């Protein structure tokens, strides 16, 4: 009949390896082959440049509203790099760098944010789910994919992502709980950028860390410096190995900061101080990693410049391609909006398709008339 404190096994850890000045903790430093280090940097850079380029396009009216990802490349790549090609990557919407690393063509991303469903279809060889807009709803999918792996005795893992805001959703709890009960091989990565649009962490939760929520699910939980790609790498690598060995899920929280507004429609000055933004800008992940690579002799300044050029070129080519595709007959085909709703076409939808065909014919006729007119105009 006692009053006693219960022993709780899990310990929540904090991990940081490469600090904002590119000092590295030698004891904790992972042993990553040079080629892989370069690849990590390349995709972080590609994510960043893509993001910047898309912002410009959006400002020029060449792209719809989209959530930017600048500042979150370390979380995305430090984790995704641990996946095999046939593992699964289940992003939210700030994992641009990781999606590109996984094999999503840049064009797809651009097309998606430009209002084309074609951008959402994962390429054939890519075991990924597309960007997920309704917050936290992708997490149970990740768990289900993992449960199927267990059932099929596949030795794969699933890496999935959610924000600090999304952590408040019921689906987040349910997914973490299911994963732990079914020992699903899922690595949950919380991209904690301390804001859900305007709502600060203190309004989102009253506990110190998202990582400690792992205690509610008897799974390992760790908070890492989310701008330190080495720390993310180490923590997710452990989690991936654990999952692959059949020990079930883990929760990893990367503490980070948006370098940008929430989306192109957002004005963060309303809710974040300039001082705070400046402070965090210094901690961003690319610069320190580039320095690390140089210090380590993996890349020279020249290499880095070359990579910049290469990446710029990739982005440029992709933008051109995306804009070309957006004008292609295939992507402009209006009937695609109806043809993929079901595997087969139900009668009532066929009737609506016929209605649409009428409209499309009229639109075409109108265009022709207009063209004819303007031709006449030009001649006169």
């Amino acid at each position, binding site marked *: 009949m006692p009053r006693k404190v219960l022993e709780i096994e899990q310990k929540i850890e904090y991990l940081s390896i490469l600090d904002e000045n590119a000092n590295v903790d030698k004891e904790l430093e992972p042993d990553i082959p040079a080629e892989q280090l370069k690849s990590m940097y390349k995709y972080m850079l590609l994510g960043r440049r893509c993001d910047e380029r898309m912002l410009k396009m959006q400002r020029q009216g060449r792209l719809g509203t989209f959530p930017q990802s600048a500042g979150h490349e370390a979380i995305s790549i430090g984790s995704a790099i641990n996946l095999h090609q046939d593992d*699964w990557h289940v992003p939210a919407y700030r994992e641009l760098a990781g999606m590109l690393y996984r094999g999503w063509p840049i064009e797809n991303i651009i097309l998606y944010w430009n209002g084309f*469903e*074609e951008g*959402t*279809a*994962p390429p*054939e060889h890519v075991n990924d*789910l*597309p960007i997920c807009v*309704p917050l936290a*709803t992708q*997490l*149970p*999918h*990740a*768990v*289900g*994919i*993992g*449960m*199927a*792996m267990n*059932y*099929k005795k596949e030795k794969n893992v699933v890496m999935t992502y959610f924000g600090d805001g999304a952590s408040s959703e*019921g*689906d987040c709890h*349910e*997914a973490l*709980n*299911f994963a732990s*009960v079914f020992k699903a091989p899922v690595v949950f990565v919380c991209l904690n950028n301390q804001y859900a649009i305007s709502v600060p962490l203190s309004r989102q939760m009253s506990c110190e860390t998202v990582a400690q929520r792992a205690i509610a699910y008897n799974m390992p939980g760790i908070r890492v410096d989310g701008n330190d790609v080495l720390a993310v790498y180490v923590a997710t690598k452990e989690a991936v190995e654990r999952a692959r060995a059949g020990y079930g899920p883990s929760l990893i929280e990367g503490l980070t900061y948006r370098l940008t507004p929430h989306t192109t429609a957002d004005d963060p000055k309303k809710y974040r101080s300039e001082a705070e933004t400046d402070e965090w800008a210094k901690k961003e992940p690319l610069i320190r990693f580039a320095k690390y690579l140089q210090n380590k002799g993996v890349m020279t300044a020249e290499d880095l410049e070359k990579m910049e050029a290469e990446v710029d070129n990739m982005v440029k080519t992709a933008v051109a391609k995306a804009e070309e595709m957006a004008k292609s007959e295939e992507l402009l085909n209006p009937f*695609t*909006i109806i043809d*993929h*709703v*079901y*595997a087969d076409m*139900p*009668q*009532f*939808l066929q009737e609506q398709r016929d209605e649409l065909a009428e409209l499309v014919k009229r639109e075409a006729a109108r265009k022709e008339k207009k063209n004819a007119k303007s031709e006449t105009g030009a001649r006169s």
Partner: protein
Amino acid sequence: MAEINMAKAINLALHEAMDRDDRVVVMGEDVGQDEGVFRITEGLFAKFGDDRVIDTPLAEAAIIGTAIGMSINGMKPVAEIQFTGFDYYAFHQIESHASRFRNRTRGRIHIPMVMRAPYGGGIRALEHHSESRETYYVHTPGLKVVIPSGPRNARALLHSSIQDPDPVIYLEPKACYRLFREEVPDKMETLPIGQAQVVKEGEDLTLISYGASLRAALEAAEDMEDDGIQAEVIDLLTVSPMDHKTIIKSVMKTGRAVIVHEGQRNCGIGAEIIARINEHAFLYLEAPIKRVTGLDIPIPYFSKERYYLPDAERVVIACKETLNF
């Protein structure tokens, strides 16, 4: 094959489907050791084990959400929601994902899952245990919604639903679970989803129904025979995509229609049927189409449930009004 009731027929279909295809798994609350609160999963746990008959934690959104994930990774989950009154908890997963993945990915990813749930009133159940809100699903593009009415079609349609490459909401009128028995063939059979059946032919008016309400329609049709009225009775079986061709054909013959369903009236299936008849058979109509449906109130607790549920008497009254119009 012996005569069996609908509960048994659904159970049989699950056994058969799991025997045939090891991608089929059953999951939900109490579907395993307990064999389901209506014993629909009887024998499955013993036969197929924990791996394929999965008792889940109590969370409807995650049941559907993980079933979506399993579908994506090559399986065919049959997820049970214990009562339709609790499926709203999972509605965002159904609306935002199950119904959309195929379209969103231009066919690259599709969700061949089935959500089954005991559905409707008539068994003196507690609050939230008698709901019939198929409209929510019918109004959601990308889903198919199947509601069987008897043992034989229940079994065949469950097979079709499991084999379907798209998500099927399979609603089981629980009032019919043990209402009557029917001979089902030894050999597994399927029935095309999206096809209605004329279950009784007649010339005077068309009765359109499905699920447990079909009993009221049939009973009414029989009653009216005494008065020399020949009603044609259509069992929809699938409420989405709805087979309006069969309806239209019948109404073109009879000129009159009465729709019977236990779901609420406002934007119910009856409204859609009326709209389609209006669109396709306007000139054939000789009287307004009547709706005998659940009232636009929450289904009452069981002491007054009978005032809400359609019965043969209400159907007969509506038919006579239609005929005397």
